[in-house]
């Protein structure tokens, strides 16, 4: 990871070494949100940071909020872009299920922002830099470890080398219209190097493990393809920030078509494999 950080121009990594009441905080307790937030606050104070940036995930949003609470910083959740206007950090954000763009200035000395995956394209530094790792001792409050982690198990969400759903540049999603057969969805995703998602209904049916939606994973990819997805408000709230939306559905009245750039009325079991085949052929053709 250090080499990768260096390639993108990160010069210093502060490695938090939290302790509580004189004892080192170790293991699963390092993941407690208040512990993470207090370590971030210590890092922000030590470095005199102007901005603290985290990627948008549920745990990170909470850590960011507590960091801002501890430091009196202004907070923007799910920023899609940011710039410095000379006086303040200014963040852009898409709200109300992607229907409005809002630009706000953070008026405090430290700005805390969570940034949506795919909101910005990572660019390597012109030249890789050497990364220095500096220890950062942090004495956390007693309240930070008031909750106890009884167990913590990370499981592989997709073992096939597919990108993570929340971060993927291309997402192919299957809904009720798949009738439980996700093979065509997976085939198209593999042809495109995309992540596979589902609607909430499809996950409740046990057809897939992760759903895109307001209370599930929020995605904002370059390309979203919904197959057999009706486009209920809950689902739209989780994908409407996608740059290009493509829908495949046998129902010409499907609401997802209303927010699509391109749509095919047809049987996804026929359309998706044909598209996957054409994409594979295109990719194997020398250009």
């Amino acid at each position, binding site marked *: 990871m250090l080499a990768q950080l260096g390639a993108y121009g990160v010069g210093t990594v502060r490695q938090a070494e939290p302790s509580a009441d004189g004892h080192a905080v170790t293991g699963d307790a390092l993941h407690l949100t208040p512990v993470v937030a207090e370590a971030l606050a210590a890092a922000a104070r030590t470095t005199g940071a102007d901005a603290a940036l985290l990627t948008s995930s549920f745990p990170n949003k909470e850590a960011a909020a507590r960091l801002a609470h501890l430091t009196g910083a202004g907070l923007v959740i799910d920023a899609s872009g940011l710039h410095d206007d000379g006086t303040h950090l200014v963040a852009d954000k898409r709200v109300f299920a992607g*229907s409005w763009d809002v630009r706000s*200035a953070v008026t405090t000395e430290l700005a805390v922002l969570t940034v949506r995956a795919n909101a910005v394209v990572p660019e390597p530094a012109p030249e890789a830099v050497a990364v220095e790792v500096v220890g950062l001792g942090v004495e956390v409050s007693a309240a930070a470890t008031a909750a106890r982690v009884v167990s913590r198990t990370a499981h592989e969400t997709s073992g096939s080398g597919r990108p993570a759903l929340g971060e993927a540049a291309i997402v192919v999603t299957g809904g009720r219209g798949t009738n439980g057969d996700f093979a065509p969805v997976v085939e198209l995703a593999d042809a495109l190097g995309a992540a596979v998602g589902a609607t909430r209904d499809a996950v409740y049916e046990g057809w897939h493990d992760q759903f895109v939606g307001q*209370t599930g994973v929020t995605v904002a990819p370059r390309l979203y393809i919904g197959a057999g997805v009706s486009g209920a408000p809950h689902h739209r709230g989780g994908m409407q920030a996608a740059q290009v939306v493509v829908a495949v559905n046998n129902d010409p009245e499907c609401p997802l078509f209303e927010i699509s750039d391109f*749509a095919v009325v047809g049987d996804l079991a026929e359309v998706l494999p044909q598209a996957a085949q054409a*994409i594979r052929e295109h990719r194997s053709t020398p250009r």
Partner: protein
Amino acid sequence: MRIVVAVKYVPDIHADRGFEGGRVVRRPDEGTLNELDENAVEAALRLVESLPDDERAASEVVVVTVAGPDADAAVKKAFQLGVDRGVRVSDDAVAGSDYFGTARVLAAAVRRLAEESPVDLVVTGMAALDGLGSVVPTLLSAELGLPQLTLAGRLELTGEPGSRGARVTRELDGVDEVLEAPLPAVVSVTDHANDPRFPNFTLIMAARSKPVEAWSLADVGVDPADVGDAGARTRVLDAAPRPPRPEAEIVVDKGEGGRALADYLIRNDLV
């Protein structure tokens, strides 16, 4: 067991919303109880219902909201589900509050309730469907100095009367966790935690005449300068509705739909 449920009055998900003078404008006639808060109310009611008779008889579920009088509709909805008591903190100074202002006022209301008699648990939904910030629960825990057990897919009580704790199970970004904390604590529950009940006729009738207590900022001891526009740490510079997407290019599959899809992606440099 005394449980406070923090709820939000939100515009109907289908209704129009916009910005005016840097603030969110809502159409008040179309508001409702935030759907995800129904899971919080349900979780609180089920915890109480799971208690032994004597403990249950001494229990109370109170909803608290920070909003104008329109929000009584949300509190009344909670009454219809079986909540015992409802408090709305309203003040002109609250308008324009950011996450921190909202959490501060909610925390102050919880503290005032705790002065009457101890509060064991504060329960919230996982997010408000209008804002989706999902940070008020963690801020509420920070303001109150109580442990946080957030985004629970499952919530249970542990221990005995007098020394109870809470245990939550959650799944986030491919990590399964079980967390425990002694009470009092702040818990947020997801929409997986339960299926909210439907109001029954008796409760609907009773809710009509049940009063919603209205408190001011002074009643909960919050300085107006700390909340609302005055206390906000961000300022909206510009807000504009996004132009509607141009109408979709629709192809009816007659055997070449998949190829048309691939061509569209290739043509737009998306492959």
